[in-house]
């Protein structure tokens, strides 16, 4: 059971990115941004610049792997895909998220 610190925001972004790549496969940074916006029906609009440090950090940690490729418009772009370690991390982070939301709901209900 993990105690939740102020790293919540960073952890949440990680979770979203990992889940997106786990279900969509190989995407570049812009596509990830669009997908998250689209699925969350524009509720989640992250400051897009913060995506890249996060994605680089996750690649360093071994949860994603990156490679250069050609986009649909024939421009060079860096594509990311999730690794096995990444899937494990996704599992853990999803559980932590569920715990967090439960805890918040409990406090709201009973405090």
């Amino acid at each position: 059971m993990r105690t939740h610190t102020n790293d919540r925001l960073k952890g949440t972004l990680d979770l979203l990115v990992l889940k997106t790549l786990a279900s969509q496969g190989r995407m570049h940074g812009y596509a990830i941004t669009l997908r998250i916006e689209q699925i969350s029906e524009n509720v989640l609009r992250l400051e897009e610049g913060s995506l890249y440090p996060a994605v680089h950090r996750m690649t360093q940690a071994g949860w994603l792997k990156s490679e250069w490729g050609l986009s649909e418009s024939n421009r060079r772009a860096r594509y990311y895909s999730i690794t096995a370690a990444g899937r494990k991390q996704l599992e853990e982070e999803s559980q932590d998220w569920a715990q967090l939301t439960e805890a918040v709901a409990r406090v709201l209900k009973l405090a």
Partner: protein
Amino acid sequence: MGCLNRFSNMFRRDKMNEELEEELQFHLEARRRDNRNAGMNEEAARHDATRRFGNTTLAKERAHEVNIVMGIETIGRDLRYALRSLRKSPGFTVVAILTLALGFGANIAVFMVVNGVLFRPLPFPDPGRLFLISYQSREGGWVFSTGIISNTSGTFRRLNRLQLSTKTPPL
């Protein structure tokens, strides 16, 4: 990314910066294009793209930081792991340390001698003029003769003569 990648990242900084720049530009370009396709004019499209992106310089710096800092953190972690595994196999550790000590010791000893003999200048104002000649004499022993070559006349003045042989020395 393996530790090899992390290590080489420290040296490929320029290339990494370039690639990062390219990656961010791609994003901004793509957003701009989508905005234009949605009907915005050029100015508004670009403005919206940069606004959504936030601070580009900051993003670039933080992404770059991540690549560098992770390298340094993991070196500390690797060092601690190495120390732990050395502690677990004491036999190997002892042999390794002894070998290193032997190597160091030998090197230091040799260098000390060489330093004292070869690198220290001779206590003589012009050591280039000193000479030592050695030869084997007819009787079978060795003769050593030292002297100084004069710097003016090209002649020499003999200082010492040492003869080592089994026969009685000449008078």
